[in-house]
């Protein structure tokens, strides 16, 4: 809501500067977004009176003027404009003046003749003919305002005003009006405000001789009021009205249209004016559109209507979409002579739905959507008619149409000062509370608060508490710490585990990333999922911003690859990243509409190879307290078939890891190996031993033995390790692979794998015999897979 301070001052006297006013209003609940001083980009422009106009000695198209700008000597100004003559009052930009758009004016010479300033057109002052209908676009603005040479142009043109932009919350439609804000101002400063005049002389033919109104949809139209005006003389509205409209951001058009806009801004009640001549028949019906009906709205667009849409219709056709926009056909034109003023109230949700369906939002629909007060229709209608008379724009007819479909019983809420003080933890006197409520036009009778009709948002004693609190001052409410039961805060085990994972990955040099939860369905192609892959089955957003963000991801891999690809494209040499990512499956659960699953997504290029990456995973898993996990060679989608593993603990799949398939990398434009892992958070948590048990430090010495085994190339080392562990049993403290050899000294198809074993008993020093027996046992196990000691 853009408020003209000058307009507000018509009803209430404001004694503070605009900035202070804005702060005070903000603190009482009407938040100010911006303060704009009108004409703030016009400097050093004054009124001038042209004393003489002489031809330019060297230029046919220029003239030389002497202009009185209220200074001792007249200024000489050269202009190319044709419309100036001696005696004209004009805006003069003096040397050093600035104009809207940042234009600066300096004294200079034009074809050898000194020019000490510039006479301005409407456009150069940021104005249009709508603001000053007597002026022309193409030429110097010849002022017809009461002014004298040397006057500041802003003052002369009524630009000496401030426009204050308020952020009005949706519950306060009543504040989308000058009077609503006057009421708030009045309550904020506890000073009275005056309502505008609404008395109407009338005298024209009674409205009933022109039309009768029928409302077919009472639920969608709580009130429909109308009055007629005859002998209408369309013309410009007076300057005071134009400048108030202009300051409020509305373009002046003609007296009748300006009155409807003026009243809408003043009262917050949208008004509509029909040209009576163009209504067919005398009957106006408020009804739903018929199948196939169309209307060309005032903006010139042909729109097809649906039966769910409420329209105002004459006896033949719709003439307006109720509460949204009138029809072009019945709009006010220059020779309009009889006008029907409509002041009605339409159902908010219905206007909202229609407005959305038509893709047409107007000042009027925006107001109706929020739910307007049917009781505001009457004063607004009377105010419009009063203005018609004041402006001499026509003869107001007697009588009025009033179809009422609303309950005007006011809402009552018990007045409970003690509860309010307890709720706010304040000590506000009942007297102060009364004053505040009365200034907001609540009434208090018999211990009950009667809520004004425009405050539909006030329903409960908590709402009353807010009214009191905001006018009393939120800053005066004390700050206390909560009493009540002691609660022990903290993280759940799962939340703690998540922090532990992040800490471990950060310690491994990995950076955390955050990516969007929605992706393009095309990303599934990009990561190489076959057309029938289960993971393509995603939760789909019905109204996405675009395809790129249209489905909820079932895997975090594409998000990771996008980020890696972006880093690669940005020429970052290496990236090692992780995301604690949520993925979304369409399966409904008992309590939620879909299944959301936490994943630990890792991705890396340029830092390490497969085994370096595997090492990170092993370290992190051990640190998390996950023991006895193993890597199994299983090809997975999106991964290099020979460089991919499932990470399992027993039968539970903890995740998948490996090098990304070269084909997938090509889709992402990455020309270097990428390693990735997707770990299932829930499985990790379930598999982790979080309760650490201390083991005493060893008291007996360890024995170290190296073991070199020869086996077929095809035997995975995991098979060797398994048998070493089985053979050594509890005595094995540490097992480390330190060499794999293939080459001349071995038969082809064979490899040699060398291990260092550390053996130790808890309760004794191991003897050579014991150690030898262990080694023999291991070798015996090796026979199962054709592996033997390398000799």
């Amino acid at each position, binding site marked *: 809501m853009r408020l003209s301070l000058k307009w507000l001052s018509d009803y209430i006297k404001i004694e503070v500067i605009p900035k202070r006013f804005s702060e005070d209003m*903000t*603190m*009482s609940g009407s*938040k100010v977004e911006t303060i704009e001083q009108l004409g703030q980009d016009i400097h050093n422009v004054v009124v001038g009176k042209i004393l003489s106009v002489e031809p330019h000695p060297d230029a046919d198209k220029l003239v030389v003027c002497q202009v009185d700008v209220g200074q001792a000597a007249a200024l000489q100004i050269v202009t190319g404009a044709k419309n100036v003559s001696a005696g004209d009052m004009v805006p003069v930009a003096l040397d050093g003046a600035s104009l809207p758009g940042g234009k600066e004016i300096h004294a200079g010479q034009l074809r050898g003749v000194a020019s000490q300033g510039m006479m301005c057109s409407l456009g150069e002052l940021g104005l249009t003919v709508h603001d000053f209908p007597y002026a022309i676009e193409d030429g110097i603005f010849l002022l017809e305002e009461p002014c004298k040479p040397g006057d500041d142009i802003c003052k002369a043109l009524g630009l000496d005003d401030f426009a204050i932009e308020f952020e009005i*919350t949706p*519950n*306060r439609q009543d504040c989308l009006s000058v009077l609503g804000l006057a009421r708030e101002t009045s309550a904020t400063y506890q000073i009275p405000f005056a309502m505008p005049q609404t008395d109407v002389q009338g005298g024209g033919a009674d409205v009933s001789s022109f039309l009768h109104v029928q409302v077919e949809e009472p639920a969608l139209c709580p009130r429909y009021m109308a009055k007629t005006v005859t002998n209408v003389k369309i013309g410009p509205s007076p300057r005071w009205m134009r400048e108030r409209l202009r300051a409020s951001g509305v373009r002046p058009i003609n007296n009748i249209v300006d009155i409807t806009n003026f009243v809408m801004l003043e009262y917050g009640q949208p008004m509509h004016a029909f040209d009576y001549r163009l209504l067919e028949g005398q009957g106006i019906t408020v009804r739903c559109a018929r199948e196939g009906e169309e209307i060309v709205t005032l903006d010139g667009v042909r729109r097809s209507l649906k039966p769910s849409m409420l329209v105002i219709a004459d006896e033949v056709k719709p003439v307006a979409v109720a509460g949204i926009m009138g029809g072009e056909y019945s709009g006010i034109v220059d020779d309009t002579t009889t006008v029907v003023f409509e002041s009605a109230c339409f159902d*908010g*949700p219905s206007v909202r*739905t229609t407005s959305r369906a038509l893709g047409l939002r107007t000042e009027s629909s925006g107001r109706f959507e929020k*739910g307007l007060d049917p009781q505001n229709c009457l004063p607004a209608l009377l105010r419009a008619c009063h203005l018609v008379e004041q402006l001499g724009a026509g003869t107001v007819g007697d009588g009025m149409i009033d179809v009422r479909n609303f309950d005007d019983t006011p809402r009552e809420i018990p007045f409970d000062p003690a509860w309010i003080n307890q709720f706010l*933890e*304040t000590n506000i006197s009942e007297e102060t509370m009364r004053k505040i409520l009365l200034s907001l036009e609540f009434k208090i009778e018999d211990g009950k608060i009667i809520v004004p009709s425009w405050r539909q948002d006030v329903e*409960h004693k*908590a*709402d009353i*508490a807010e009214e009191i*609190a*905001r006018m009393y001052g*939120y800053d005066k409410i*004390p*700050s*206390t*710490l*909560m*009493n*009540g*039961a002691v*609660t022990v*805060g*903290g993280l*759940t085990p799962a939340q703690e585990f998540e*922090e532990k994972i992040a800490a471990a*990955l*950060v310690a*491994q*040099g990995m*950076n*955390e*990333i*955050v990516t*969007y*939860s929605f992706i393009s369905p095309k990303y599934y192609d990009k990561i190489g999922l076959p057309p029938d892959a289960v993971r393509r089955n995603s*939760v*789909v957003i*019905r*109204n996405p*911003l675009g395809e790129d963000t249209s489905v*909820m991801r079932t895997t975090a891999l594409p998000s990771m690859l996008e*980020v890696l690809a*972006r*880093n690669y494209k*940005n020429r970052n040499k*290496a990236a090692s*990243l992780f995301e604690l990512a*949520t993925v979304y499956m369409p399966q409904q659960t008992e309590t*939620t*509409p*879909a299944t*959301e699953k936490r994943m630990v997504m890792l991705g890396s290029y340029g830092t390490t190879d497969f085994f370096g990456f595997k090492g990170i995973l092993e370290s992190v898993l051990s640190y998390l307290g996950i023991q006895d996990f193993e890597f199994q060679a299983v090809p997975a989608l999106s991964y290099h078939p020979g460089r991919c593993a499932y990470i399992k603990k027993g039968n539970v799949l903890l995740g998948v890891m490996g090098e990304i398939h070269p084909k997938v990398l090509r889709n992402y434009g990455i020309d270097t190996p990428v390693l990735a892992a997707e770990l299932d958070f829930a499985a990790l948590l379930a598999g982790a031993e979080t309760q650490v048990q201390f083991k005493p430090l060893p008291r007996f010495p360890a024995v170290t033995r190296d073991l070199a085994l020869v086996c077929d190339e095809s035997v995975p080392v995991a098979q060797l390790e398994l048998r070493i562990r089985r053979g050594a049993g509890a005595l094995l403290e540490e097992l480390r692979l330190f060499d794999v050899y293939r080459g001349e000294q071995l038969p082809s198809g064979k490899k040699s794998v060398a291990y260092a074993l550390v053996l130790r008993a808890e309760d004794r020093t191991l003897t050579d015999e014991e150690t030898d027996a262990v080694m023999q046992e291991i070798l015996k196990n090796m026979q199962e897979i054709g592996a033997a000691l390398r000799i």
Partner: protein
Amino acid sequence: MKEQLDAIRTAAHAALENVRSKQELEELRVRFLGKKGELTGVLKQMGKLSAEERPVIGQLANEVRAELEAHFAECMNKMEEAALEARLQAETLDVTMPGTPRPLGHRHPLAIVTNEIRDIFIGMGFSIASGPEIEYDYYNFEALNMPKNHSARDTQDTFYIDDNVLLRTQTSSVQVRVMKQTKPPIRVVAPGRVYRSDEVDATHSPMFHQMEGLVVDHGITMSDLKGSLDVFAKALYGEETKTRFRPHHFPFTEPSAEMDVQCFACHGEGCRLCKGEGWIEILGAGMVHPKVLAECDIDPEEYSGFAFGLGLERIAMLRYNITDMRLLFENDMRFLNQF
């Protein structure tokens, strides 16, 4: 013999004054103090002495030995010191050479800020709650006093899955789930992702993060709301932080407020960061609406509470002076490495 001992003493001291290497020193030790050395040679002649002379000479010999041994030790010590000195000299490094990189990773700035705020509330006795991001309309809107067609829904352009399911537009949905699952006393915060159909620009993103807070108990008042959030602001921005509560409107709180902190860049003078206002909006809050409590089967006559919500991107951007929200989701290494 006395003369002999004196001669050895003098000769040894003289020799030691000029000794240059450990090897020389060892040779001198052998010559004077060794088993076949000069001093031993003299002592071997003790047998020839008279009974009266023997103790006198014996004592003298011991004195000479002790004296020489001390001198030898001193020389030895000096030499070792010198050797160590030389070694340290030789081992001197250019300590201004760069260290071998052992890179640590970095948490995402959003995570850092989220954890910091979360921990402040944990310190105040709050637990962490969570709820689904793909949510029923009921929890996101209806139970929060925003029935279908409520105009307040307009301010939160919503991504819908179907007529009843949506991507939550606010973590406030967790309030409803918590109140339906647990009975007061309740003190929770719920950080998480929320979605609104805003086009991406420097200050908007269709996905962002909020943290919701909820307190419900006997006798919770508006001044508790102010006090608790003031403590939070001081914990986040420092003891000197000033807060200001402004009236506002949320459908699910009454009274509602927004909390500003005095601009930490200009301390209220007005600068670019606070757009000249001197205050920076940090969060929205209010007393839980009686209708919401009742909807969650909590008797508003018996219990009251307050709720608040803050935008984590905004806090992170203010904290690190990040001017473009897109950077948070682009995850460029050069960005991530700064936190």
